[in-house]
């Protein structure tokens, strides 16, 4: 106890974030690859429960970092992994996955414009693969309750290192990290606030589903693991705002993170400033390497039209969750269910 020791596996060594103070009351949880937390927990649990035999194929649908995390853990467990991805998977990620021995299946490009987009197409392809592989295990990050549960290990670190946490801010995808971390923190600090960060045109918090340029944030399918009642407030950050904030995070704090981290940083910085007594933690899920040619390239930002407007210093509060082309909005969700919020929003829409 007390002495530092080595890790038996790289996935363990990588899974926990570094905690960095950004302001007197704002701390960043900087992950190398946050999805290692659920990937590792889910696969190790499955192995403990005898669900991963020597021939069991692990299958999952993902085009992002959850796949990479599974691929790393699959190496440690010596299991075969098949990932169903969409055609726009990042080429560097694809090469890394392949090098880890993962089989990556892409769904057709034409499915992107169909109902539910790539995400729906991937889910149906996954079902086909599972039907053909009787001995398969699917981690099901969108529905598996072990996904949110796995984040207790992060809450544990936060409580030990920081003590009372008054607010946690982070991007929302599957719902696992934010619901898991906030719920775990609330076992000790029931009043801890949860602030979710989403992007316009994502249906997670009530926008209509639209094409989005910001990868890794927002969803076209509602994940079961998203428990809306966890959230005190929700922010929608545009891709441009997220990209510019990502650069500021790098320029001001030398933190080299991806754009979902930038979006979370933008929101957390404002939240911590307006609640100066509250100890705030912001979740920064992955690093910036995959975005060197885009978010970290000034020329690309200009060409793509992300540098037209300066970053707003504060968000616009909205009275209901609905798509808008504003750069940054927020809504007081107040730990309500999705149905409660949406029925209230409908009533508002009728009266106006």
């Amino acid at each position, binding site marked *: *106890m007390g002495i530092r020791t080595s890790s038996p596996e790289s996935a363990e060594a990588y899974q926990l974030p570094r905690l960095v103070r950004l302001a007197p009351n704002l701390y960043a949880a900087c992950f190398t690859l946050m999805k290692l937390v659920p990937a590792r927990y889910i696969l190790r649990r499955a192995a403990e429960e005898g669900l991963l035999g020597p021939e069991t194929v692990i299958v999952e649908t993902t085009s992002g970092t959850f796949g990479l995390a599974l691929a790393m853990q699959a190496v440690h467990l010596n299991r075969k992994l098949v990932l169903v991805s969409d055609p726009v998977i990042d080429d560097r990620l694809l090469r890394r996955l392949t090098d880890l021995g993962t089989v990556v299946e892409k769904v057709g490009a034409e499915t992107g414009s169909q109902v539910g987009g790539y995400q729906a197409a991937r889910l149906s392809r996954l079902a086909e693969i599972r039907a053909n592989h009787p001995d398969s295990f699917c981690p099901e990050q969108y529905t598996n309750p072990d996904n949110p*549960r796995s984040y*207790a290990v992060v809450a544990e670190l936060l*409580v*030990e290192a920081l*003590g*009372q946490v008054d607010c946690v801010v982070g991007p929302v995808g599957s719902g696992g990290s934010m619901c898991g971390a906030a719920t775990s923190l609330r*076992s*000790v600090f029931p009043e801890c606030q949860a602030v979710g960060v989403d992007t316009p045109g994502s249906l997670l918090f009530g926008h209509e589903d639209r094409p989005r340029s910001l990868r890794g944030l927002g969803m076209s399918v509602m994940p079961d693991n998203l428990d809306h009642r966890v959230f005190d407030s929700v922010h929608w950050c545009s891709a441009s705002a997220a990209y510019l904030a990502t650069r500021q995070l790098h320029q001001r704090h030398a933190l080299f993170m991806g754009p979902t981290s930038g979006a979370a940083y933008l929101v957390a910085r404002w939240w911590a400033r307006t609640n100066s007594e509250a100890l705030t933690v912001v979740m920064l899920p992955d690093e910036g390497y995959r975005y060197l040619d885009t978010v970290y390239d000034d020329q690309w930002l200009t060409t793509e039209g992300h540098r037209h407007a300066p970053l707003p210093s504060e968000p616009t509060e909205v009275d209901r969750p609905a798509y808008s082309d504003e750069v940054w909005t927020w809504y007081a969700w107040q730990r309500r269910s999705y149905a409660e919020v949406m029925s209230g929003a409908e009533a508002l829409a009728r009266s106006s």
Partner: protein
Amino acid sequence: MVGVGYALAHHGELLQGTFEEDAGRRRRALVTLPLPGWGSRAVFYPGHYDDIACRPELTKSRRAAILTLHELRRHTSPVPGGQIEITSNVPHGVGMGSSTSDVTATIRAVASHHGVALSREEVGRLAVQAESASDSIMFDDRVVLFANRDGLMLESLGHRLPPLAVVGANTDPGATVDTLRRPSARYHDDELARFRVLRAGLRRAVATGDVALLGRVATASARINQRFLPKPSLPDLIELSRRLGGAGVQVAHSGTVAGLIFDARQPGIEETVSECKAAIEMLGLPLTAVIGIDRVDHAFTPEQVGFGLAVAAFGHNSSGGRPDSHAEVPV
């Protein structure tokens, strides 16, 4: 020459649950809240016969004495047997550790007769062997997370608890709980996840002397335990703690006592404690003990009041540092 041993009682736990260790192994474990001023005193009279004589109800202590004599063979040539006598002021069946107190005092008495100083880890292991499940009262020099059914110290959380004032009550007077006959709590996965966080919180609270955090951990642990051994007045006690600016509420996870936790350093603590005592009586609950408030003008021994109210000090002043294993317990 007879051997004499002492051991403290406790006022339930600050935390109790199941904790995941490395390699996915899970262990039941607890962090005990010691109760200075209450305890057991054991006397071992060596004999030449191959047996341990004692009052018939002291079966666990008898087993502890036999196990200790066996253990002592690793150190010396122990006597074949003898007689154990125990005096204790600890009530039974309310979760104040009467049994572990007797057992630990017995182990110490037998070892003391032979001039052997068993380590606290050894005493803990013997106690669990003797009674199947023990609290961690033998670790009187540290705050430990103790695997109460394996007899193992999982983690030392620190040298001592921060200065606490605890006002204790019996939430179910008249009822008794048999620790071993009770089915063990079966925690679900979300609770196991919560215990990870609570353990980390307590680790920090002890390391930094953060009573507020310690109280929050204790309250959370008490709430989880409601599913297994509910204390109907827990919500009232939590509300009272909030109203009086307390840190939280701790309970005996296998008993009926509970205590409101305050920071003993806070201004006006004596008045707050008086107010708390009055409020608990208003709830119709008998007081058990007040820990951590040194009130010389009311210093009476538990002997004088029986199982009513004891005033004891530990942790925060020079006279009341956590007593070592051989500190005199007034019995």
